[in-house]
């Protein structure tokens, strides 16, 4: 267990390495929290600020937030990376948003469409090329349901009018063509990309004339919002909701389709998993269509049962009975998993540094396995995320917002956790330090981790990482003969 004093001392040590101005700025992003100090006032962390020049941040850009997160998984639309080829190519199919369909025929999730800007496009503008590209894409892939144009930096810098092109082509092709102004330089992180993407869904999909779903809403229609189906997460969530009697009519946006988006304004309740990336559209649907939304958490049996009951409470007795039946059915399976893995994982300490919802959502799953989270932080969280995090914390926890490479390494060196959960850019640094590591963005090519089925995989993965015999076989550089004692 970390004590308040130790943690504070650690933060001071880390800050001491910075020049005074940088230290002053970074101090606002680091904090020590425990369960008791909750006051709802933002827990004293400054978040969603520009990263300091010169530090190693692991944040992404607005394009990553829009194309990579929100728009990308919508499988029956073509998402054009408008600009130079790299942004789309190096992020292609990297997020493992699983979907069902024939890629290149009626779904396009893992494909990369780009306008491949050349010097002449920068000099003379890329609008003509975009218009041609839209026609070509539609001819080659006639089963697409719509096209989104995801701007990369140069498009904004040279002042192309993609809105005009999109409007004209949308009329020509009789399909939605959505211009998304998610140039990478906008905002401080991918977070603004989420917001921009949400706004374009609102303006170009939900508000599109004559596109609204005209059928009647069923009494149990719900939409799953902010589940990107990484490794099949949305599927292992969806079956639980359906089993308790709800009718899941839309998935935003993992394995999602345009028709599902258009269908959503007629649901009874929006179920929000990733609050950070899709609260904007949930708020919009609440104010415009009067659809309430509810945040839920499908990591670990404790949180799943709690979430199922909270969701059921919004419906009638039939659904509530359904929720209890689902919990009763799966709890023995979850208990068996806990019983098997808990002795192997009991008391292990975890440090997390992820984005979106995971820095707080997975805490419950680790606690179910008897592990404790000693540090957590968001790449691009806002104040409301940290407030929500505080509610999840039980013991003293180090909090780091937009942590720099240096800070993370120092924290890990001092805290020496048994497991680190972060992304690919951090993975090898910490593995070479001899500390077990799991990627908590992509589930390390495993998954799903959501739902009861996901818990089984989550527990197995954590066990096989922490108790892997390789950690005993490797000698990190500082333990090698002749090296100075660390």
């Amino acid at each position: 267990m970390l004590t308040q004093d130790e943690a504070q001392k650690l933060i001071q040590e880390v800050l001491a390495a910075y020049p005074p101005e940088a230290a002053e700025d970074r101090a606002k992003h680091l904090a020590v929290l425990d369960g008791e100090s909750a006051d709802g006032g933002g827990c004293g962390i400054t978040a969603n600020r520009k990263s300091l020049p010169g530090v190693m941040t692991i944040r992404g850009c607005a394009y990553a937030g829009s194309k990579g997160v929100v728009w990308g998984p919508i499988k029956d639309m073509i998402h054009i990376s408008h600009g130079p080829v790299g942004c789309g190519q190096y992020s292609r199919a990297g997020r493992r948003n699983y979907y069902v369909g024939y890629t290149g025929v009626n779904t396009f999730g893992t494909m990369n469409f780009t306008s491949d800007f050349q010097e002449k496009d920068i000099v003379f503008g890329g609008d003509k090329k975009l218009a041609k590209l839209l026609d070509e894409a539609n001819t080659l892939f006639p089963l697409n349901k719509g096209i989104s144009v995801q701007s990369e930096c140069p498009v904004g810098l040279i002042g192309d009018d993609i809105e005009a092109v999109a409007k004209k082509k949308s009329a020509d092709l009789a399909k939605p063509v959505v211009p998304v102004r998610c140039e990478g330089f906008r905002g401080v992180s991918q977070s603004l990309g989420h917001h921009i993407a949400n706004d374009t869904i609102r303006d170009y999909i939900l508000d599109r004339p004559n596109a609204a779903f005209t059928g009647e809403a069923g009494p149990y229609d719900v939409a799953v919002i902010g589940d990107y189906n990484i490794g099949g997460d949305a599927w292992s969530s969806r079956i639980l909701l359906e089993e308790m009697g709800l009718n899941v009519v839309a998935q935003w946006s993992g394995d999602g389709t345009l028709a599902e988006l258009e269908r959503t304004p007629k649901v009874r309740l929006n179920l929000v998993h990733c609050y950070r990336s899709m609260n904007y559209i949930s708020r919009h649907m609440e104010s415009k269509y009067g659809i309430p939304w509810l945040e839920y958490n499908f990591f670990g049996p404790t949180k799943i049962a709690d979430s199922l009951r909270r969701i059921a409470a919004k419906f009638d007795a039939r659904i509530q009975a359904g929720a209890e039946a689902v919990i009763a059915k799966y709890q023995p399976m979850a208990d068996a998993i806990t019983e098997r893995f808990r002795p192997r994982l009991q008391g292990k300490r975890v440090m997390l540094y992820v984005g979106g919802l995971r820095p707080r959502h997975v805490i419950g799953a680790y606690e179910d396995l008897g592990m404790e989270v000693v540090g957590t932080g968001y790449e691009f969280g806002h104040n409301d995320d940290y407030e929500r995090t505080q509610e999840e914390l039980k013991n003293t926890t180090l909090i780091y917002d937009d942590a720099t490479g240096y800070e993370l390494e120092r924290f890990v060196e001092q805290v020496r956790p048994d497991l680190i959960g972060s992304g690919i850019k951090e993975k090898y640094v910490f593995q070479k330090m001899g500390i077990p590591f799991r990627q908590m963005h992509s589930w390390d090519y495993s998954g799903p981790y959501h739902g009861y089925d996901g818990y089984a995989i989550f527990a197995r993965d954590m066990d096989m990482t922490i108790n892997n015999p390789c950690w005993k076989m490797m000698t990190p550089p500082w333990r090698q003969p002749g090296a100075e004692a660390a």
Partner: protein
Amino acid sequence: MPVPEIMLRRNERGDLLCYVPKKDLEAVVREVEFDQEDRWGGTLSLANGEKLYLEPLAAKPAIPLTVRVRKL
């Protein structure tokens, strides 16, 4: 002075929440100055210490509500 638009909603516990889209700020409204059936609004005191002024409404509004407020 900028006139921010805010959205008011209730969370699961029934607290009134104020959301300022421009700032991506979500905070609990600790106190509403006039909280009567025929008069609702006035100074809204947020949990983060900020105060916003909402021209009092003639009736208790339906939540969720999107309104323009003044910063105090």
